[in-house]
């Protein structure tokens, strides 16, 4: 017993080191499964407040572009209103982007709406140009969104011309482009084909622009195309987004969860 204590004392530094590392590693694993700790992320009010203050100051330098964008956004909203007669289950919550990274493998953006504004985990986010991402963490006044330019994100898409379905993934290289996979070799893919959301999940309604085909390659012996898509959304200029409330989302997800 005494020997055991001696050994423990002798190696106490190493033991504490291992314990701390295991704890930190468990945090990483937990965060990877689903980053939803709102205190230990930028959904935390203090961190988000700091980013929001900075973005308020730097915002003055982009006012002209902002005005253009808001005007376009208003027009898009009016169109939506006109087209919305048949789609009453959808509603949009406008939010401002207070922080965003575009230069990492796992990019995130923080928006200034949270649980108290009705934001829920898993809701889709778009702007007037196209798809932005999915809500991954909800704090009381801020939320963290995983954009499509995050290597962990998969998005179900379809070709507008013939409804053929594929999966959009990001390769971590350039925030203007992503890759469309699962498109079989018998399809005819042309440069300039429009890719839109498939509507196969309740997160995004059908037909939101995703991007256009920049180029497509069919390697010899491959049965699937490698397609590079130019994204509709300009992530470097992202300031305002809309969170999509789908009244049926919970109901649909509860049904599909029951299948597993």
């Amino acid at each position: 017993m005494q020997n055991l204590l001696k050994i423990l004392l002798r190696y106490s530094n190493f033991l504490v080191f291992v314990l701390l590392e295991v704890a930190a590693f468990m945090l990483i694993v937990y965060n990877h499964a689903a980053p939803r700790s709102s205190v230990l992320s930028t959904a935390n009010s203090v961190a988000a407040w700091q980013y929001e203050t900075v973005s308020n100051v730097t915002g003055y330098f982009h006012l002209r572009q902002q005005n253009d964008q808001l005007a376009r956004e208003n027009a898009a909203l009016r169109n939506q209103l006109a087209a919305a007669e048949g789609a009453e289950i959808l509603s949009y919550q406008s939010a401002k982007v207070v922080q965003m990274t575009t230069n990492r493998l796992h990019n995130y953006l923080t928006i200034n709406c949270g649980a108290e504004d009705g934001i829920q985990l898993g809701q889709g986010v778009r702007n007037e140009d196209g798809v932005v991402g999915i809500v991954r963490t909800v704090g009381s006044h801020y939320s963290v969104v995983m954009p499509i330019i995050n290597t962990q994100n998969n998005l179900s898409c379809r070709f507008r011309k013939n409804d053929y379905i594929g999966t959009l993934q990001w390769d971590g290289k350039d925030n203007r482009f992503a890759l469309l996979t699962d498109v079989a070799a018998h399809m005819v893919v042309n440069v300039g084909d429009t890719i839109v959301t498939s509507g196969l999940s309740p997160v995004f309604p059908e037909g939101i622009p995703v991007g256009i085909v920049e180029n497509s390659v069919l390697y010899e012996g491959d049965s699937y195309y490698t397609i590079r898509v130019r994204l509709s959304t300009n992530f470097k200029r992202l300031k305002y987004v809309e969170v999509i409330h789908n009244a049926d989302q919970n109901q649909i997800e509860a049904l599909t969860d029951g299948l597993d």
Partner: protein
Amino acid sequence: MDWTKQIVRYVVVMLLQVLLFDQLQLMGICHPYIYVLCLLMMPITLPRISDMLIGAVIGLMMDIFCNSLGVHMTACILLMYVRPYLLSVLVNESDRLNEQLSLRTLGMEALVKYVVILVLLHHLAIFLLAAWSWHHLGFVVAETIVSSIVTIVVILGYNILKYR
């Protein structure tokens, strides 16, 4: 150890980190983490266990700003664990390092080795853990080298300006 000085330096360095160095855009491979300056330049008066705990807290603070829970924490604990071993290899009589760890007490050669080795270790750990797969290994290595160079230059520059 002068706690006020350490804390003031930490706050200033964190502001620079979040407001300036996190905003750099260089082909997506330049993410210098200059906040390790505070950990590297901390005097070695405290017990090693407290050193590692301080590393854990500072890493966690950075994780909160990066949405990368645990990544910086793991790297900082590793850094603080390795630090005394490396110092005992680089410097013969480590008594004089108790008051201050700087260009003056270490000498240029030992300081450069100390900073380069630990910054590379820290940045490699972070980018490997952040990528969370071996698919991006080439990218991770490039990211480590480019980012480390910036961090090393900042830390050496700080020492030269302050203790020349």
